[in-house]
């Protein structure tokens, strides 16, 4: 078990492509850290640098306090679980599990004991004689887990280990991996592009984009206090709604002008957020979590809108509403954001209610916002306004 620390680590490929830019990040001993981001964001490269499968171009990587930059993978004693599982096709499940111990020339009795113990823990006992080719996807995944667990390594590195499983099994294995990690207490770095995995499994989440760490924190912090538009829209499903707005100081207090409505912000909220003052009379991007808005049939209340369609998810009802009040603004906001991998600012809003009345398309509705839970972003810098 060991803490892992990146300090100012970069990875530049021969062609000049920078995969990871100046990454500084400390993963505590025993922590479950999830590296999340869209494909090509550098998360897998960062993971492979810990494993020693990718050379570090600049900066220092330490594992357990010792500099690991130039250590070979075998000297690092970290276990990696690959997206493809990378099981040895010519070896049986038992041999796959015991491979690392055998390479380290552990006594035969110890290998057998550890393999037995791990197989029992992962319910692989009946499969020990089989070859990987004879296993189902879920079974292979468990063998890959077992191969990492059997070694008692200093850290687990997991590269999208659930992405090849079907949705049901994925949900089941999420819980299983988190449970096994807590039981083993081994430092774990888990790479995924699935924000649900990040939210449900991690102690802390690191969001990456274009090789740059965007935000690091507990899942709830990222959800409630995203530092920029990218993190705000990447975390959360359905994603954060982005609506154009203007902040105005009036006699009634701070007013938020949204398409079709003017809302007066509670005085304490406006006073708490100094950043809002700096954006006085300027266009901002307003972020509304789908559950921070609710629908009412009273079209006079809240923001007027028209139902576009509804998705009944059983426990939840997601309604997409077209804001009726204003036409799309074609300012800097709309154009810029669409290009940078962030959902477009639009006059549509998805509203997620635990249960809701069925509404038909084109039905006029009112949208009531939970003003305490709105997010504000600068349309130019894309940073959260605080």
């Amino acid at each position, binding site marked *: 078990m060991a803490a892992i620390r990146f300090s100012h680590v970069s990875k530049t490929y021969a062609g000049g492509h920078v995969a990871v830019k100046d990454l500084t990040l400390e993963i505590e001993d025993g922590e479950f850290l999830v590296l999340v981001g869209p494909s090509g964001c550098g998360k897998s490269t960062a993971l492979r640098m810990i494993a020693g499968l990718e050379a570090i171009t600049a900066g220092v990587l330490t594992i357990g306090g010792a500099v690991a930059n130039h250590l070979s993978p*075998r000297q690092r004693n970290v276990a990696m679980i690959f997206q493809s599982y990378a099981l040895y096709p010519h070896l049986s499940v038992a041999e796959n599990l015991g491979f690392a111990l055998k390479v380290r020339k552990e006594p035969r009795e110890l290998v057998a004991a550890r393999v037995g113990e791990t197989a029992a823990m992962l319910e692989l006992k009946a499969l020990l004689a089989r070859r990987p080719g004879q296993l189902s996807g879920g079974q292979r995944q468990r063998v890959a887990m077992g191969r990492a667990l059997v070694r008692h390594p200093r850290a687990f590195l997991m590269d999208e280990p659930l992405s090849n499983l079907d949705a049901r099994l994925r949900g089941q294995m999420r819980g299983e991996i988190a449970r096994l990690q807590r039981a083993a207490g081994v430092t774990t770095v888990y790479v995924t592009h699935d924000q649900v995995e990040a939210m449900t499994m991690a102690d802390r989440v690191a969001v990456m984009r274009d090789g740059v760490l965007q935000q690091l924190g507990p899942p709830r912090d990222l959800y409630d206090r995203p530092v920029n538009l990218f993190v705000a829209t990447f975390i959360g499903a359905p994603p954060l709604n982005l609506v154009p707005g203007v902040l105005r100081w009036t006699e009634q207090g701070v007013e938020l002008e949204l398409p079709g409505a003017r809302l007066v912000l509670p005085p304490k909220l406006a006073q708490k957020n100094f950043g809002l003052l700096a954006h006085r009379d300027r266009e901002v991007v307003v972020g509304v979590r789908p559950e921070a808005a609710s629908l009412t049939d009273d079209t006079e209340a809240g923001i007027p809108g028209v139902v576009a369609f509804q998705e009944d998810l059983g426990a939840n009802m997601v309604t997409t509403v077209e804001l009726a009040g204003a036409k799309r603004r074609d300012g800097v906001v709309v154009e810029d954001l669409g290009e940078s991998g962030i959902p477009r600012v639009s006059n549509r809003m998805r509203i997620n209610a635990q249960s809701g009345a069925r509404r038909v398309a084109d039905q006029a509705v009112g949208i009531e916002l939970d003003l305490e839970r709105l997010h504000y972003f600068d349309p130019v810098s894309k940073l959260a306004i605080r």
Partner: protein
Amino acid sequence: MRDRAGLALLARRLAIVAVLIVALAPVVWLFSIAYKPTRDIFASPPQLLFSPTWDNFQSVFRYFNLWALLRSSLVIAIGSTVLSLIIGVPAGYALARATSPRAIWLAYFFLIIRTVPPIATLIPFYLFMRDIGLLGTWWAVIMLNTALNSAFVVWMMFSFFRAAPASIEEAALTDGCTDFGAFVSVALPTVAPGLIASAIFCVMFSWNDFLYAMFLTKADTKTISVALLSACGTKDISWGTLGALAHFSTLPIVLMMILLNRYFVQGLTQGVH
């Protein structure tokens, strides 16, 4: 509907039989002449029923040192196959795992080496072997076959290793293997069908090599393929002896193919893409 399917099946079987007849007729004829008295060999119409004779085999044992011929063929085939694999397999692996996009061109270059007509290289190689004192030895033929076959092995194993996922070797590295350890204990077993297919090709090429063996060996290092030519005398061709000798030059390869047929087919269809 059923009749049509039955007809199609029948047609397919007939086509297979036709192909088999065309392919096997010369072989059957070659083998059959070994058991025929000389006067029956070119009898017209061909004698399908005849009383078999062992005379031709007896004269093969009398006039040829058959065991020396087979030993030479075997030593050359196995020697050049082992050397070709020792050189070609690691080279193919290195090319397959190279990050440079130019590696593929180098792999094709090796394939081109195998396509050079051996006759074009014979005279320079002959002079070279004479100068280094290896003319007339098994080594001369082994080295030349190795040069050509290892190039083929490089290309073939390159294709196999490229088709095998590198993540398995990376898993071995994180499991504690050295680079060489990962190559030996994980990468090689994964491409076992390719290794066997490459070895079969090498054995076949070397065993059937006539040109180099003809010019670079001498009486006591001659191979069975060269001995076949001895059945052609200055005045006539001893067809019966040729048929009997053909048994000994063909059967070892046929036997090997029957045993390893499964891997050979895999080798032809897998990895090569």
